[in-house]
């Protein structure tokens, strides 16, 4: 929704995250346990952001972390959980049930149609589905109409323009061109619909090298780029690393044990105390852990082993 033409978009993690202000609507890239911009989100928490409205499709630890840190007031996503892995998202569940966070649950195609409306510069897009479900009750901003072409009922969903899209990409250059590898989830929709885009990348490349990779996000949509290797940890970022199941299990146990334990055992240890991303990585297991998460490349057995539950880790 804007054009950013500076030649050098490189920023510190702190400066990039500071583009997000209290009360803004944010769209978080990736999904479930894949390519979520965790380093940027941890920085948002460190900076004490409040009252964020988060929108998207199916997410996990990213949104649950923001819920557990008290950074969010509205969740408008299609799913927040840990799938068959650990099940429900403890912090998300707790803040919804206490009423501290408004659950504006949505559905994947609905939110894509809303982002597309923003992308196409029109006030709404029509949707045939959703009718007959209680999502209409939850979203008084949707309208219904009788289609002038078919005479059948339709739902009109309004354009959704996030203030900031927060993206983690595999590759980028200083100017802000990005190469995001699939599953892209909703990242390209977020990027095209949002007013600001901040991106962390695993690897910053010279533009000529990035060109060979056929980037899929042009620089003029991106406002800041931060190189943060392992910036999606504990979610996965192939072809670099698989997700850190042991870390997620530790996260889940802390969150499950209630807000105080979560604050002490997770937020303090992994978000507030580490002064730098390097310090975070070192607390999260250091080079040995990083090496282990890269071992998915060593063959199916090594890869499979990364999904093994650590002894006693799952409640």
């Amino acid at each position, binding site marked *: 929704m804007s054009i950013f033409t500076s030649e050098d978009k490189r920023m510190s993690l702190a400066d990039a995250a500071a583009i997000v202000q209290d009360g803004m609507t944010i769209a978080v890239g990736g*999904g*479930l346990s*894949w*390519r979520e911009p965790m380093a940027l989100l941890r920085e948002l928490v460190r900076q004490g952001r409040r009252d964020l409205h988060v929108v998207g*499709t*199916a997410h996990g630890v990213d949104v649950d972390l923001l819920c557990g840190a008290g950074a969010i007031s509205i969740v408008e*996503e*299609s*799913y*927040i*959980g*840990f*799938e*068959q*892995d650990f099940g*429900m998202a403890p912090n*998300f*569940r707790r803040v*919804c*049930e*206490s*009423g501290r966070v408004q*659950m504006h*649950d949505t*559905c*994947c*195609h*609905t939110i*894509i149609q809303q982002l597309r409306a923003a992308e196409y510069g029109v006030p709404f897009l029509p*949707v*045939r*589905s*959703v*009718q*007959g*479900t*209680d*999502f209409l*009750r939850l979203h008084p901003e949707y309208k219904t109409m009788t*289609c002038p072409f*078919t005479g059948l*009922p339709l739902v009109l969903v309004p354009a959704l323009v996030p203030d900031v899209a927060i993206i983690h990409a595999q590759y980028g250059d200083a100017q802000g061109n990005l190469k995001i590898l*699939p*599953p*892209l*989830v*909703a990242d390209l*929709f977020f990027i095209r619909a949002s007013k600001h885009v901040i991106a962390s990348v695993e690897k910053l490349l010279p533009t000529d090298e990035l060109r060979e990779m056929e980037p899929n996000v042009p620089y003029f949509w991106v406002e800041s780029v931060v190189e943060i290797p392992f910036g999606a940890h504990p979610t*996965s970022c192939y*072809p670099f690393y*698989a*997700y850190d199941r042991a870390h997620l299990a530790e996260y889940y146990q802390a969150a499950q044990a209630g807000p105080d334990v979560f604050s002490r055992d997770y937020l303090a240890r992994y978000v507030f105390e580490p002064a730098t991303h390097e310090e975070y990585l070192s607390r999260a297991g250091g080079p040995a852990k990083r090496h282990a998460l890269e071992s*998915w490349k060593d063959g*199916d057995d090594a*890869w*499979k*082993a990364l*999904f*093994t*539950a650590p002894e006693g880790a799952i409640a």
Partner: protein
Amino acid sequence: MNAGHITYATLPEVMIYQVARTIQDGELVFHGYGSPVPALAMLLARRAHAPHMVHIEGATYGINPEPPFLPPTSNDWSLSRGSVMAIGISDLFDIAARGDMGRMFLSGVQIDRYGNLNVTAIGDADTPRVKLPGSGGGCNLSGDVQHITIWTTGQRAPTNKTGKRQFRFVKHIDFISSIGHVSRDGVSRQALGLRGGGPDWVVTELGVFDFDPVTHVLRLRALYPDTTVQD
């Protein structure tokens, strides 16, 4: 211990077989994330009676993948291995919305007699008693997909902490996350202008159900040998 293997061993193979039976050859079929039973049923169907089924893998949207194992999280590269290509999230939902998705699988923590499902919240939606993870794409897909198989491994009602038995099949559904045959206000899916045909099969750990073609109400079709109607 491998999660894929745990999954495979602990889920009743008979359920996977029953879910696979609902798939027709030559149709495009999709399962969502967190759905090991449909995932395995689709792999089975394609190897058995539906070799021309188009398998779209949940979350990676890989086409006809040959995953080396089933990881417990669904946006994982292992799940698109062997695919010639993957489509995008929007392609997947657009395919359904234009009527080209043959079958999809949905589950629910509450299931009412018309096949409406709740995976959003128990209690009041403003401050729910239990906030469930959410419907993912189920709300849209329930309106759009040609045929839907409902599956659940939790039909047998457990008792909660206060000793009350919690039924998955409910008379009153707290939140309709995905639409079955008749809405809360008694409107049929046809009158709502929906494209898909709605759920036709319900496979649980106890038996197989379908819907009466006239009343659209759930009815028992078959019990597995080791279960009773009392369950």
